[in-house]
């Protein structure tokens, strides 16, 4: 589940550039620490650590 919330990377505090059409639940990768982040708000843009991939995730 989501934990920390930030307009920067909640893991390493790096500022994250995002595209203008980003939407909630999009996944971005922090360019500094490579953490997967989930967009949880767009006005302003906010990130949280992305949910873990679970064992039964797939196609």
């Amino acid at each position, binding site marked *: 589940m989501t934990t920390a919330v930030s307009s920067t990377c909640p893991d390493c505090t790096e500022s994250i550039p995002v595209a203008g059409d980003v939407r909630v639940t999009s996944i971005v990768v922090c360019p500094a620490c490579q953490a997967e982040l989930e967009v949880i708000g767009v006005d302003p843009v906010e990130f949280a650590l992305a949910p873990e991939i679970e064992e039964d*995730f797939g196609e």
Partner: protein
Amino acid sequence: MKPSDGQDGPLAVLTTRTRLEERLIFAALERRGVPYAQVDDRTIVEHLQSPSPVRYSGVLNRIMSHTRSGYAAKLFESTGHRVFNPSHVVETCGDKILTSLALVRDGIPTPETVVALTPDAALAAIERVGYPAVLKPAVGSWGRLLSKVNDRDAAETVIEHKQSLKAPIHNVFYVQEFIDKPDRDLRVIVLGDEVVAGVYRRSDHWITNTARGATTERLALAPDLVKLALGAARAVGGGMLAVDLIERSSGELLVTEVNHTMEFHGLAEVAEVDLADLIVGHVLEVLSA
């Protein structure tokens, strides 16, 4: 769930994450002017005796978890929604044992497969197939936890390791012959009664999955391949499906799995078709029939 306009409300798109595939699907819906509502699977709450009055014109299920996907499909079907893909297709495709049973039942060529229900019986299953054998989790994807077992020592080790994974599903053993294929497999996309695209997935590793770094190349859709893919899709219940195949060194094609919530980022890089738009078109066509 969000409010809608009634019976002809928006198309619900159930998601876990908004990946490239979902972004392409949303873009296709917007280009076509199709109203839709993204429904995050973490927000779904349904009272079974008093179900939500929210109505959708249909439900496109892009949930990444097999467990959640199957239950979500059941919940929406219980309130009369048409779900893509139907829950029975999700159940079959999400479980390799059920998939293999369906393929074998319909005479679709597939690797020799043996199932054992306990660790005690696993070694016999592996040796029935012979070495090298491939062990796959009955439920799982992206090439995770696949094991190529070359001899009895390795088999005993893998069985012991799987026993240490406490989930009961890990103590059911799905064993297949190892196919000494070329450095590629094939993925063919079926929408209803039509094969719309195909790619080779190439890797130096014996697991040729794009989630494991395989690259994609365009694949010509030969008639025998089309027939086989359609047969495999029918066997698991039909719908919008990605059929994965491998080749024996003789060239014989074997179906290995059929995916019910297809990823197509690799295919999108090389295919000439706009698969997201074809998926949306298929959904709309079925809903309007």
